[in-house]
């Protein structure tokens, strides 16, 4: 029987090519997006799962509470991990990790590589994270200060086919590191994604430095079944004992420590000082919803077209029933047909997904693969998806078609037998509501993107060249003098951090009020180079830098925060033993999704490899860059010249949003295309069904345009209802998305009007071709046919 059903299904598909194409192509598009979403969701949920006992591994985090501010940090004090390992019995192993501050030179065989994928770790690190070692013993590596271990891929990069063990790499042009082990990177992903591990740098007074919280990440592996709350309690007791022995500079700050399962980090953790930016479950949900939306639209196409063309299948159903088919058997036949189409669509979906994958990878900055890594999973998922989609898409048409009464269809009384038009209208409204909501959302997203990229930042990132210093012995003054001589260079400044980078945090106390705030160390030319406006007092001078009194320049938000508007200049910051000498206008060093917070500039009096900020005012940028490069070779001999431009670096902050906009645009295009495809098919059948009516109207004198209006208006009416239904929904989603921005564009009527016009224009174009064809027929043939 199944063979019979399949044979008959294939013949039906081939006979109704347009119908089959619309159905299969629509389902394929929907399924291809679902395949991509599946790959993405699998990636997002795979984090940390390769580590043995990953559910017992926790990261330690610190929650600082000031008077008004609260800061939750992913980093913890230097001695925390060893202290809990020694004092809390639930801890099986504990280890620290310090991630790279910046790209650093690794040299082997006269070839330099600048890498930031390295970290310093305790020897116990591999007891917490069970990496698989290809060579070397995880229990003994990194015992010597000059040991280094590499990932398999990194070892190949350095040594090719040579045996890496025992080879020596020069680190930061200073230290020789000996390769003692090669590890395999975990099969699934991790927030710890390093290729090089170097032994922990012991500080002389480290074990008592509870206020030292640089880039130290602490991890513990707990005994299975440990209650995290009771562990946290014991950890805080240990920490309190530790703090009491230490000279804490921020005594007004309260700190609490909390453990965090590593499996929750990737999707849920957005603390200050994360090793790298984590993802949001919200985005995963959006992608899932989008996958379902497009599939839903394709399924609606299927349902609509199948029921619209039911007349073509009615006779067959009638005959089959007369010769013995039950309704159940007829339903099964139609379900087999829809599943067959769905399986054909799946094959096409794999192809489409492979075509779209590079685009998605670029947008998401990932390297996802579809069939390469776990082909069985994705094929299994695909087959399941196609069966489920086939069943859902086919169930209503199957019940509808199999419900035909043979007596009615065989005696030509078909028109009275059943009417599925109201359902079809409802489904068209549903489809176009989704389209209109998405178009509106997209419009608002673009309005916001336009707003954040054109709004004044409060500083000028144009024509600013950023050169990270690599030689710690370089004299800043000589570098400045050397560069200033080059024609076209306006200002040369040095600073530890630049706008767009993560700033350091520090405690500041004025009067009774204390808070941890962002700070940066800058030299006297910083505000000139970046065009930041000074609103009160003065900025640092060259002599300040050598002065013994600490001086600070703050932004306006700082002044408001501490409520020192009347007299900011000369205010003492008691815990830092210094005074405020100047106030600058607020500027957006974090982009627009975060509001401007209080910010402090320190003098660059302890310059450790800062960045040179070179303001260029030249019409011939390439030759100026060349000249800088030439001079730089003399300043930092042995180090290659590396630079970037601030506008591009800062622009990277918006890249995520721009990519989201692009992805949304692409998805909207696909969804609107799929819906339009369905409408096209539906219009064709409607025109076919109204053939006789059109013929009679033409005989009676109707013009082509009148007939076109007749056919088009019904659809336009539906689409208009859809727009009205969808606009509040689209607005609501857009509003939700906008809450992620501290600065939001004013939403005006434009996106609303544009949405209605776009959706009407798209459907008009889709329907009018069919309407024109129907209106152009020879009325005689239409009437004669009947």
């Amino acid at each position, binding site marked *: 029987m199944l063979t019979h059903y399949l044979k008959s299904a294939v013949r039906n598909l081939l006979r109704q090519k347009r119908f089959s194409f619309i159905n299969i192509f629509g389902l394929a598009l929907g399924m291809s997006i679902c395949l991509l979403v599946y790959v993405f969701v699998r990636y997002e949920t795979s984090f940390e799962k390769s580590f043995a006992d990953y559910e017992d591994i926790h990261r330690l985090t610190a929650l600082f509470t000031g008077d008004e501010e609260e800061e939750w940090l992913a980093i913890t004090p230097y001695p925390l991990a060893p202290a809990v390992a020694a004092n809390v019995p639930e801890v099986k192993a504990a280890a620290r990790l310090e991630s790279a501050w910046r790209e650093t030179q690794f040299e082997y065989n006269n070839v330099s590589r600048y890498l930031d994928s390295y970290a310093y770790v305790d020897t116990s690190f591999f007891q917490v994270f069970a990496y698989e070692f290809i060579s070397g013993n995880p229990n003994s590596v990194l015992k010597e200060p000059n040991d280094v271990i590499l990932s398999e891929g990194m070892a190949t990069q350095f040594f090719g086919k040579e045996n890496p063990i025992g080879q020596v790499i020069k680190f930061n042009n200073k230290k020789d590191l000996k390769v003692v082990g090669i590890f395999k990177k975990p099969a699934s992903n991790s927030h710890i994604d390093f290729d090089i591990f170097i032994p922990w740098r012991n500080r002389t007074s480290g074990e008592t430095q509870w206020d030292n919280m640089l880039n130290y990440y602490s991890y513990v592996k707990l005994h299975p079944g440990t209650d995290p709350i009771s562990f946290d309690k014991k950890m805080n007791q240990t920490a309190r004992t530790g703090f009491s022995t230490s000279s804490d500079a921020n005594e007004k700050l309260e700190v609490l420590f909390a453990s965090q399962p590593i499996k929750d980090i990737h999707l849920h953790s957005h603390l200050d000082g994360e090793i790298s930016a984590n993802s949001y479950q919200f985005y995963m949900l959006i992608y899932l919803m989008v996958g379902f939306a497009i599939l839903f639209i394709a399924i609606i196409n299927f349902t609509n077209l199948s029921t619209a063309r039911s007349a073509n299948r009615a*006779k067959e159903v009638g005959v089959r029933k007369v010769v013995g088919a039950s309704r159940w058997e007829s339903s099964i036949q139609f379900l087999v047909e829809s599943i067959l189409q769905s399986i054909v669509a799946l094959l096409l979906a794999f192809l489409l997904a492979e075509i779209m994958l590079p685009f998605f990878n670029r947008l998401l900055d990932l390297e996802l693969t579809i069939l390469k890594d776990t082909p069985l999973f994705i094929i299994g998922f695909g087959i399941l998806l196609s069966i489920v989609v086939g069943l859902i898409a086919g169930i209503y048409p199957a019940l509808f078609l199999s419900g035909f009464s*043979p*007596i009615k269809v*065989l005696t030509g009384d078909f028109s009275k037998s059943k009417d599925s038009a109201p359902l079809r209208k409802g489904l068209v409204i549903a489809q176009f509501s989704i389209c209109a909501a998405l178009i509106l959302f997209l419009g608002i997203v673009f309005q916001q993107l336009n707003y954040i990229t054109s709004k004044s930042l409060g500083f000028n990132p144009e024509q600013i060249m950023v050169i990270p210093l690599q030689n710690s012995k370089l004299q800043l003054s000589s570098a400045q003098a050397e560069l200033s001589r080059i024609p076209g260079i306006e200002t040369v400044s040095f600073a530890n951090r630049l706008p767009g980078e993560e700033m350091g945090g520090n405690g500041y106390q004025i009067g009774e009020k204390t808070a941890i705030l962002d700070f940066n160390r800058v030299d006297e030319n910083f505000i000139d180079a970046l065009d930041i406006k000074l609103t009160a007092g003065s900025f640092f001078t060259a002599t300040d830098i050598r002065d013994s009194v600490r001086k600070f320049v703050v932004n306006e938000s700082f002044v408001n925060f501490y409520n020192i508007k009347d007299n900011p200049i000369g205010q003492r910051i008691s815990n830092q033993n210094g005074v405020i000498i100047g106030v600058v206008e607020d500027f957006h060093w974090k982009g627009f999704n975060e509001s401007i917070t209080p910010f402090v500039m320190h003098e660059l009096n302890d310059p450790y490899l800062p960045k040179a900020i070179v303001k260029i005012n030249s019409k011939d940028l390439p030759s100026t860059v060349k000249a800088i490069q030439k001079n730089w070779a003399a300043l930092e001999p042995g180090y290659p010249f590396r630079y970037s431009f601030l506008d591009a670096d800062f622009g990277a902050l918006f890249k995520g949003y721009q990519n989201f906009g692009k992805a949304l645009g692409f998805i909207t295009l696909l969804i609107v295309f799929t819906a339009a495809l369905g409408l096209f098919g539906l219009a064709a059948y409607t025109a076919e069904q109204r053939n006789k009516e059109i013929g009679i109207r033409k005989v009676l004198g109707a013009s082509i345009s009148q007939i076109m209006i007749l056919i088009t208006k019904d659809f336009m009416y539906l689409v208009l209802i859809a727009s009205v239904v969808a606009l509040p929904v689209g607005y609501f989603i857009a509003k939700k998305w906008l809450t992620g921005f501290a600065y939001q564009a004013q939403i005006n009527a434009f996106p609303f009007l544009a949405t209605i016009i776009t959706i009407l224009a798209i459907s008009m174009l889709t329907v009018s071709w069919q309407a024109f064809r129907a209106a152009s027929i020879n009325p005689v043939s239409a009437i004669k046919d009947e």
Partner: protein
Amino acid sequence: MIRTNKLKKVYRTEEIETTALNEVDLHIQPGEFVSIMGPSGCGKSTLLNILGLIDNPSGGEYFFLDEEVSKYSERQRSNLRKHNIGFIFQSFNLIDELSVYENVELPMLYTKVPAGERKKRTEELLEKMNMMHRKNHFPQQLSGGQQQRVAVARAIVNNPKIILADEPTGNLDSSNGDDVMKTLAQLNQEGTTIIMVTHSAYCSEFGNRVVRLLDGQIVSENTIAKYRI
């Protein structure tokens, strides 16, 4: 074999009520070949559809093989139908997507006849109908006469006790029509009960009884002493 008692069929729309059959009493013995005649709209096809269990009466009783079936559900009717009744239509009603062979085989799929047996019976019948050489053709590639021969093969492939034919020659020329009528007459001789709706007096003479309907009622019943073959 078939007995109706005050059989009634009323069609209702919002405004009009039409009585298609009005208290029809009909009795058909096994092995009979009954022709139902009458003008258009007299209720012939309605009667045939009810007798063929593809429609339910609005009132009265209908005994099929001594079972009262007038209140049967679609499922029950379908079960009785597929094992006992074969249909032949004026417009052939072959399924366009199925080949000649598959159209004939179709009823046996629904009665779960094993594959080997299906093949044997289909081929036998196609030979008998002289359609074996066309078995892989599709209905639209055949002449009207050929299509009706396939339809007859399909109607008898499950060896039904009764064949219902609704104007079986209506769409055929006289020579093809004659062939079909001769086939039906031969089947009747072999023991199959046949009920046929027809406008043609000539065709009705192939049967042994003519029932005339007018406005939903039987107005006469004539036995034909010596019928054509």
